[in-house]
């Protein structure tokens, strides 16, 4: 077994015990990145030099008998909207292509203080808007299980990287499914924490009432390990909840489904035409494993969520994006196209700096908040969101976990999404963002055929219920195993992959 194939937990244990060095772990992962990038384009910036310095510091601590921390020598890939001092944070946009932040995001500070290494920044949809990676203005990332297919989005590069063994962990962001959907497409774990659990200081905002930083991993144990570190309270983010977090490590150490009530959503039956058989089979398999583990299977009804979740999200996420992206004005940082007047400076800069999806969202967000449209679109959506949150509150009186497919199907072929299909692609992942709930995606096997594709299942819990999700995932993992590292496609596919 190669070092890059180890879990984060195994890497940190080996480095702390002196069985191998952080530098050896890093070189193994950097080798994997070099081997895979031609076909996958999962990365925007590789920061090998910086990571080597970090590894040398960890190795120095071990040599002196000091403990570098629970992430000792563990490489973590960062989505390129999470700031890391000294490296560009492009958001896969021309707007920020050359901007280097002079600070670390809170989650980067927390992981670095625990001994983590940061080998690079991952590809994504521009400003985290999209579900295939194809709105990146640089290159389009590919799915390691089939490079003709998308790794998902917007954190597609992170998911492809962890699935391909570039690193055992990655940090992405999830506003409407951007961690969970790519995790399901790439056959790994992805977690969106409760809104308010993880600090967003130093993370480029998209829709602030929905955004959360979320980890990717190949085992439930690793997911608990990284969550326990990045969920520390942070006064630098006013929405980050103060106080003690649960012991996530304990939740995966002794997993049990006995007596848990796991619910399926009745209303999804009406949407079966939108859902691929493979994901419905994945859900059945998950429910069977829960039943076998001693859980009680119940059902819940979420009619407003299922019917109105997608338009509600469409309106509110655009409104918030228009507001968040107002900061890109060509004055303080990023691209600047100087004109004669201030108005011309703004219009030229934003006209040239934003890609097509950013422009669509800024304009739609502006439109739904303008004049008479405000009540018809924005207020109606904001009220509907209250009903959706209430619906979940009610549902959780009768269950501990809600299970549903993560995405309508397995990874799609690149270039085939648009219009209605794209609007409905995050139908199943956006409800937890609207209601502020934690949700996790885990692999539930593969499709048939000569290029089998991963199939994901999604678990939703009530607020602050991450330990509940991790416990259930770890219990099911005992039957299905953790995620495996994908084989890299043969070299020489560079042109094709991009």
């Amino acid at each position, binding site marked *: 077994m190669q070092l890059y194939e180890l879990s984060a937990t195994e890497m940190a244990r080996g480095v702390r015990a002196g069985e191998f060095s952080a530098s050896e772990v890093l070189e193994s992962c950097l080798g994997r990145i070099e081997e895979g990038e031609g076909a996958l384009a999962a990365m925007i910036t590789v920061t090998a030099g910086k990571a080597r310095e970090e590894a040398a510091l960890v190795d120095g601590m071990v040599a002196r008998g000091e403990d570098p921390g629970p992430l000792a020598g563990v490489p973590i890939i960062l989505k390129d909207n999470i700031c890391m001092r000294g490296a560009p944070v492009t958001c896969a946009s021309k707007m920020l292509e050359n901007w280097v932040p002079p600070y670390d995001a809170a989650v980067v500070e927390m992981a670095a203080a625990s001994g983590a290494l940061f080998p690079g920044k991952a590809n994504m949809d521009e400003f985290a808007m999209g579900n295939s990676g194809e709105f990146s203005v640089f290159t389009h990332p590919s799915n390691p299980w089939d490079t003709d297919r998308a790794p998902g989005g917007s954190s597609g590069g992170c998911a492809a990287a962890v699935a391909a063994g570039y690193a055992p962990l990655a940090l992405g962001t999830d506003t409407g499914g951007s961690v969970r959907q790519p995790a399901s497409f790439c056959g790994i774990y992805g977690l969106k924490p409760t809104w308010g659990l993880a600090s967003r200081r130093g993370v480029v905002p998209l829709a602030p009432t929905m955004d959360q930083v979320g980890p990717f991993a190949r085992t439930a144990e690793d997911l608990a390990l990284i969550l326990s570190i990045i969920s520390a309270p942070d006064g630098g983010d006013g929405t980050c909840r103060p106080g003690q977090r649960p012991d996530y490590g304990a939740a995966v150490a002794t997993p049990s489904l006995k007596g848990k009530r796991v619910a399926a959503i009745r209303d999804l039956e009406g949407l079966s035409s939108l859902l691929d058989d493979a994901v419905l089979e994945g859900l059945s398999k998950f429910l069977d494993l829960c039943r076998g583990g001693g859980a009680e299977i119940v059902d819940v009804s979420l009619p407003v969520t299922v019917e109105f979740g997608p338009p509600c999200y469409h309106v509110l996420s655009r409104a918030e994006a228009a507001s968040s992206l107002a900061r890109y004005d060509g004055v303080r940082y990023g691209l600047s196209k100087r004109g004669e007047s201030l108005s011309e*400076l703004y219009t030229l800069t934003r006209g040239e700096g934003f890609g097509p999806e950013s422009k669509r969202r800024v*304009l739609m967000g502006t439109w739904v908040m303008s004049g008479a449209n405000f009540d018809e679109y924005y207020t109606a959506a904001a009220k*509907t969101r209250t009903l959706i949150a209430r619906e979940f509150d009610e549902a959780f009186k009768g269950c501990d976990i809600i299970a549903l497919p993560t995405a309508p199907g397995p990874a799609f072929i690149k270039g085939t999404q648009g219009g209605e299909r794209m609007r409905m692609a995050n139908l199943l992942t956006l409800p937890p963002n609207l209601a502020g709930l934690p949700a996790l995606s885990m692999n539930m096997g593969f499709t048939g055929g000569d290029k089998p594709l991963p199939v994901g299942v999604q678990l939703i819990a009530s607020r602050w219920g991450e330990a509940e999700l991790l416990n259930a995932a770890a219990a099911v993992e005992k039957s299905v195993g953790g995620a495996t590292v994908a084989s890299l496609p043969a070299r020489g596919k560079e042109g094709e992959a991009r």
Partner: protein
Amino acid sequence: MTITEQEIRALAETAKVGLTDGEVTAMTAYFNDAVPFCGAMARAAREGRLDLDGVPPYAPAVEEPPAPGEDRAVPSPLRDELLAAAPEARDGFFVVPRILEEE
């Protein structure tokens, strides 16, 4: 309701986003496709299928709002680095085009 290219141009001016003629055409098509979708909630409310009466707009729940911090000035160590990364800076300030006419 049909949204015209003229309305899209006015909207782009409000949002300060430059659009080419081709982009205006594509944007108009997107709006005419997406706006009916976005109106699903108000429409359902009018048809009596969704009861929004008396429902407050959603506000993210903050159960334990952080206590206000002490109000004190602290030096920012980032000032010079941020200004160095600016498109144009002078005498410790960002430079913008003149917005007032000279007398």
